[in-house]
């Protein structure tokens, strides 16, 4: 199995989720993160003073998939998450040794 971590623009979440659903991927975990990269942060100006906000809000999506579907899923996320701007994010793929469904104790691909 593979474990995919995607860092995306927050407003692409719905698009990515729908694209994954269409691929039959029905499980995922999302969390809020802040990113630092080529996309520079922004400035906020309060009372004439500039505040540099270096980190940009991003979402992290984690999906565990069977190894053979990994590439397809990466492609799907890439296409759905792309807006064409700097800061669109990254997709990382890891090897996943075991997966367990807590409720049933099932393991492996069945647990996903």
């Amino acid at each position, binding site marked *: 199995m593979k474990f995919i971590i995607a860092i995306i623009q927050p407003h692409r979440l719905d698009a990515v989720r729908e694209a994954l659903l269409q691929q039959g991927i029905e499980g995922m975990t999302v969390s809020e993160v802040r990113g630092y990269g080529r996309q520079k942060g922004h400035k906020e100006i309060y*009372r*004439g*003073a500039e505040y540099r906000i270096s980190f940009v809000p991003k979402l992290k999506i984690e999906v565990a998939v069977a190894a053979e579907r990994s590439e397809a899923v990466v492609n799907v996320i890439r296409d759905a998450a792309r807006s064409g701007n700097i800061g669109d994010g990254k997709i990382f793929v890891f090897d996943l040794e075991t997966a367990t469904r807590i409720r049933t104790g099932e393991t492996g691909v069945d647990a996903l």
Partner: protein
Amino acid sequence: MIDGADTAWLMISSVLVLMMTLPALGLFYAGLVQAKNVLSVLVQCLAIACVVSLAWFVVGYSEAFSGTGPVLGDLKALLLQNVGRNAVHPGARVPETVYIMFQMTFAIITPGLIVGAYVERIRFGAVILFSLLWLLIVYDPVAHWVWGGGWLAAYGVMDFAGGIVVHVTAGTSAVVIAAMIGSRDGFPREVRPPHAPWMVMIGGCFLWVGWFGFNAGSAIKSGADAGMTMLATHLAASAATLTWMAIERVKFGKPSVVGAVTGSVAGLATITPASGYVGPLGAVVLGFAASCLCFAAVAAVKRKFKIDDALDVLGVHGVGGAFGSIALPLAAGIGTGGAALSHATGQQLAVQLLGVVSVAIWSALATAAIVKFVALTAGLRVAREAETQGLDFTAHGEVGYHVAG
């Protein structure tokens, strides 16, 4: 003789002015700091309110409003033991108790304003000691000079609701303590933005509505003067708010919430001394000028003088209050609806200038001495790690937001 209507108006004005500190000023300031210091600001305002109230009861009121010596009161009202249940305030138709209460709310908010200068790095004990001494050495004497029949009153200085007594004292003292306590770690490059602009806005709104008690209450009477004062106050604040937004729109492309509310407060501080003397048009003009001036002053303090007057007490309150006090003789003559001055315009201007300058000097000198004393006794500033971790936890053992259970 006590008049029920005047008394009701002064009582409700007292409630409004107390609300300006508890919680309005607290919220206004707490939203501007980092999340890790939100509680410390709120509790500083609360503690100041309590310390000032007790000190006012013990000796403060006597110092400021009992007797009419040129420099200080006569201390006959110590512990308010000479205040009878039915005593009437001389020259007015309200109970002495209500006058004491009303003036107390002014004495509370003035050191409260100074909080904005030293937030995020001061020791809690220093806040209490400083505010107590500052009340007794700066606020009470100045209130006596201007409002209690002291030497500035004798000169005919006009200050309807505290441009000099409240805003000039607080603003000048703020910049002195800010300079002496030193900047926040990382100032100016790494300072964090206001953690909750929505809280700034709520605080600002309650300041605005409370300010009607401040200004229109200062008529000490329900009637035409209070009415015009209220109208002038509101129009000046409206004009100042829009002006600040317009300046930000032009300079930065976007009008911000924090900026707009800052404009409101600048307008309110500026109209304060003049509120009982100007008509509607004069008020609008003052409000407009207030934001232009304060906007420049805020930037100047930070950039030119590099003083970390963290929440811009000098730039907004000090400059606004001073400007309003000095411009008052001119503003009173703009359009209809103004009131008479004590002197001819030119002379009044000179007198106003004398008032502002002498009070600013006294505030600065006395504050410097008090801060020095506090530094040597209670200690002024928390340790670097405490500053990094935030005062909420290190000084009060609490965390502002426990949303995640």
